[in-house]
C-alpha cells in the first residue's frame, strides 16, 4: 500500500473523491434537471436545501451526520443489521457524508448548464418524435457537457479538500477514514513539517491542475461555439 510516505491517505482520498463524484453525478443529474425545468412553488425551498452545505460550517454538518448515521439512529441501525458494519467511523459513512457535503458543487453547475440548453431545443426534439429520456440523452446531455465537466471537477476537488465533516463522521482511522487533509493535520500536530509540506504541496498541485484543466477546456469550447 505504502508506495511512498503518505501514499496511503492520498490513495484513500482519491478513492473517496472518485466514488463520491460518480454517485453525485448519478444523483445530481436528475435533481439538477428537475430544478432547471420545474415551475413548482417549492423550487426555492429545494434550491436552499441543496445550497446549505456551501454556507454551513462543516462541523455543523458533521455533527448532524454523526447523529444521523450513528448505530442508534434509524438509518445507522438499519445499515448495521444489513451489513454488520456501522456507518460512522467507516468508509461507507464517509462516502455518504461527502456526497451530501459536495452536493451543491455538482448540482449547481449542472442546473445552470441545463438552463442554458433551454426548453426550445427539447421541444423541437419532442416534435421530431423523441421521448423525454431520449431527448435528454441526445440533446440536453451533449449540450450541457461543459456543465458536466465543471460539476465533476468541482465535486471531486471539493471532496478532496474536506476536513471538518470527515473528522466528525469518519475520525482518523488509517486505510479507512484517514484522508489526506486529516493526515496533514496530524503531521502538523506532531510537528512533522516535512510530511505536512509534502502532502500539502500534492494537494495544492492537484487542485491547481484540476482547475486549470476545467478552465482551459471551458475556454476552448466557448471559443468553438
Amino acid at each position, binding site marked *: 500500500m505504502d508506495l511512498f510516505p503518505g501514499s496511503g491517505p492520498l490513495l484513500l482520498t482519491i478513492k473517496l473523491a472518485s466514488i463520491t463524484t460518480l454517485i453525485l453525478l448519478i444523483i445530481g443529474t436528475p435533481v439538477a434537471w428537475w430544478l432547471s425545468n420545474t415551475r413548482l412553488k417549492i423550487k426555492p425551498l429545494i434550491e436552499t436545501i441543496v445550497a446549505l452545505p456551501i454556507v454551513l460550517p462543516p462541523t455543523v454538518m458533521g455533527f448532524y451526520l454523526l447523529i444521523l448515521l450513528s448505530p442508534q439512529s434509524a438509518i445507522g441501525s438499519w445499515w448495521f443489521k444489513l451489513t454488520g458494519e456501522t456507518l460512522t467511523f467507516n468508509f461507507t459513512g464517509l462516502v455518504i457524508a461527502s456526497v451530501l457535503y459536495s452536493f451543491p458543487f455538482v448540482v449547481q453547475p449542472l442546473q445552470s448548464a441545463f438552463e442554458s440548453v433551454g426548453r*426550445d*431545443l427539447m*421541444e*423541437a*426534439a*419532442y*416534435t*421530431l*418524435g*423523441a*421521448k423525454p429520456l*431520449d431527448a435528454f440523452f*441526445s*440533446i440536453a446531455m*451533449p*449540450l450541457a457537457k461543459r456543465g458536466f465537466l465543471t460539476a465533476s471537477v468541482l465535486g471531486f476537488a471539493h471532496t478532496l479538500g474536506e476536513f471538518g465533516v470527515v473528522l466528525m463522521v469518519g475520525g482518523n482511522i488509517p486505510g479507512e477514514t484517514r484522508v489526506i487533509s486529516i493526515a496533514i493535520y496530524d503531521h502538523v500536530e506532531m510537528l512533522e513539517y516535512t510530511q505536512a509540506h509534502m502532502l500539502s504541496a500534492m494537494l495544492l498541485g492537484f487542485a491547481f491542475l484540476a482547475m486549470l484543466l476545467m478552465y482551459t477546456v471551458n475556454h476552448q469550447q466557448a471559443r468553438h*461555439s
Partner: protein
Amino acid sequence: MNKAGHCAIKLQRKAFAIDVEFDIPSRGVLGIFGHSGSGKTTLLRCLAGLEKDVQGQIEFNSQTWLSQSQNLSSQSRNIGYIFQEDRLFPHLNVRQNLDYGSTRNTANNSAPLDREHLFKLLNIGHLLDRKPRQLSGGEKQRVAIGRALLKNPQIMLLDEPLASLDKKRKQEILPFLSRLHRELSIPMLYVSHSMEEVSLLCDHIIVMEQGRIQFNGRLHEALVSPESPLTKADDAAAVLDGIVTKQEKEFQLSTIQTANGNNIVVPGDTEVGQPVRVRIQSSNISLCKTAVTNSSILNIIEGTISAIVDKSGSHVLLQINSRNDLLLARITKKSYQQLELSIDQTIFMQIKAVAIHGA
C-alpha cells in the same frame, strides 16, 4: 374543404384565453392569421401538444390527440413543426439534424419521402456536412423544414417560419413553401401575421383575434368578402390562381390565365405551364366606364361591381366580379360619385402589371 380532423379547444392563461373550434383540412394550406398577441402561436402549440392544461377535443386522421381522458404527447402526434427560429441542434451537423426525426418516427407506415428529391427542392444537398452555425439564416430555416418533412409527418405545423428572416431570405423561402404545398399530399397549418405570406400560400384561412376565431373560410372569398376582417386592412388585396400561358422574355413578362378564363400580364418570366398565384392590391386597380385604348396599362379587364365592401373612410372599396374571378378596387369617394357607380354596373379595371406579386 375535405376535413381530416377537428379541433375544439380551450386554454386559460393568466393574461389571455384561447377558445376555438375549427376543421383541419385533409390537404392544402390552412392559414392562421392574426396580429401578434391574438393567440395564433399558442393555438399551434396546443395542436402540437406543447402546451399544458389544454381542455377540449382534438381529432386527426381518426386518432384522438386530446380528449377528457387522453392527452397524446408531442412525440406521439405525427406532426412536423417549424418554429419561428430554426431550432437546429447546434452539436449535430446538418445530416444528423435531418436524420433526427426520420430515425425516431416508427409510427408512420406510408412510403417515406424521397430524400434526394427533397434535398433538391429545398436546395440543401450541399450543406449536409456543415454545422448549423456555418449556415445562413435562410439555409438554417430550409434545413429545419427538411428535418420536419423527413420525419414523414401527417400534418405540417408552421409557426411564422419566415418571421426571423429579412426580406431577401423570405423571397428565397416563399417559393419553396409554395412548391411544397403543391407536391405534398399532407395538410399544412401556417401561422402568420403577414397578409402577403398568407395570401400567397393558403387555401383556407382562420382569422384570430384575442384567442377567438373571427373569420373562417376559403382564402379567395375571405380576401374580398364584405364580412371578412381582411378587407378592413389598408393593403386589402385579392389573389387569383392561374397557369402561365405565354412568356415574353425580352420584356420580362408572363401572361397567366385563370381557371375562369381571365388573362393577366405579370412581371417575371415564369415558364409556360407553371401554376402561379398573383396578388393584386386594391389600390393598384383603377376603374373606367369605357374600355380605354392606347394606355400604358397592360391589363384592362371587364367586370361588374358585385359589392361595396367598405366605404367608411375617404375611399370606397369595391368588389368586382370578372367571369367569377373576384377582385378589389379602392377608389376615392369623389371618383365614386363622379363616375356614378353602383352595384351590377359593368366596369373596366386597369391593373398595373408591375403591381402584381406572384409566387
